[in-house]
């Protein structure tokens, strides 16, 4: 079977599937917002990509 090989090494930007979701809405003070994002980040790290069905960059689990 014919297939194409590596033709993209020259890309400088990392190819990404994006999400329209761009982060949770602001809640409370800027410190509280930072806490929410930090909490989401922690959850993301805890569950890891293997448990995350959503393919996106919303929780930074795409590394």
């Amino acid at each position, binding site marked *: *079977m014919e*297939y194409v090989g590596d033709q993209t090494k020259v*890309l400088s930007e*990392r*190819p*990404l599937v*994006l*999400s*329209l979701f761009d982060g949770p809405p602001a809640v409370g003070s800027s410190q509280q917002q930072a806490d929410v994002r930090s909490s989401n980040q922690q959850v993301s790290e805890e569950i890891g990509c293997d448990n995350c069905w959503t393919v996106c960059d919303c929780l930074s689990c795409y590394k």
Partner: protein
Amino acid sequence: MYRALRSPISVQVEMTQRCNSSCLHCYNHWRTGEANGWLDSPSILRIVKELATNDIFDVTITGGEPLLRPRETLSMSQLLQDAGINFSMNSNLRLLTPRLASALREAGLRTILTSFVSHDRRRHAQITQSSTSFDQVVRGIEVAKEHGLAVAANMVLSRINIADLRETARFLRTLGVENFCATKISPPSDLRNVEYLLLSREEVRQSLVTLVELESELGINVDILECYPLCLIKDGKRFPKFFRRSCVAGVSACTVGSDGTVRPCSHASQGYGNILHEHLEVIWRRMDDWRDGRYIPSMCKTCHHLPSCTGGCRIDACVHGGMNSLDPCAHPEDQGQIVYPERRPVLNAIAYQLPPFNSRTESFGRVIYSQKACFPVNDAGFKIIDGLRSQTFLLDGFDDKTRDFLQHLVMLGFASPAPQ
């Protein structure tokens, strides 16, 4: 909360407000008495031009009942086909004749979503408030299928017909319907007196269990047509396809009413402008309030499932006081029980291919649209996808970054194993 697209991805167009059924559950509360509006030929031309100019990928022709205006519905279909826009139709099929079915197919129509509320003739008449609707819908399904039109059926579930779910699916299967949806009633946004029709959370969740059992028993595809909160569905391994629905109102979809008014979704009554007098992209930008998260309930704002869940239906939430109230089916205390679906397996050693797709530019890169998946990518991602059109490829053949990206395309269902 959401990246702003330059225009919607999909648009519903209501050909008329009128309907020949008067279903007890109908969300179209503005379709009453004097509501006789429909889209005339100049309006249809203008709308299709706007949809084409804004690179809309997908249109649903709906109503009211679109076949009450057959000439206009045919005209809309033909114009959409000529513009290369993918489209389908929502219709109760009561007025579908062989001649009309043939003309619609000629105009490019391929799929129809119909409404079918019960296999029981008496209950069907009770809900649609029409003694002739059952026979007419059944005949309409048969005519559609005879003319090569695929028919999916949606059963709006309420207290009246919830016990009919299994038998209705079985009956539709005998008519050749292979795609069956059962969706809970949504309370109309004017909150008229429909409390007696509303289902409990337990009844809604049980309907999901029944749907999955029906899929296995009848060999059909089942689905729901609204977004249910993940803290209702909970088990993504058991109900993977129901996990994929989220609220897209004003994010990637909107509705054009039969007077040209543009609304964030078919269930919402608030208008943001008129497509007959303004450009769609201008009206679309005004819907920022649906993208900035202000209607997300406060309890959902800090839930780490929000990206996948989006907090349920904002119009359903109105029964709890307002658009930023909790969805009636939400139960945030259960968020710890949410389990995500299995990912599609990715195999490095087999050949994959991409489906035919369209794309359009956005500020962040591109949106890719195909029958299999629709998703945003950055420019580097698009360059890879574009280079793989009509190609067969092995994941092993790429560098790490590109392979990670292609693996995501497999998990999205966009890239699939090539035929041997």
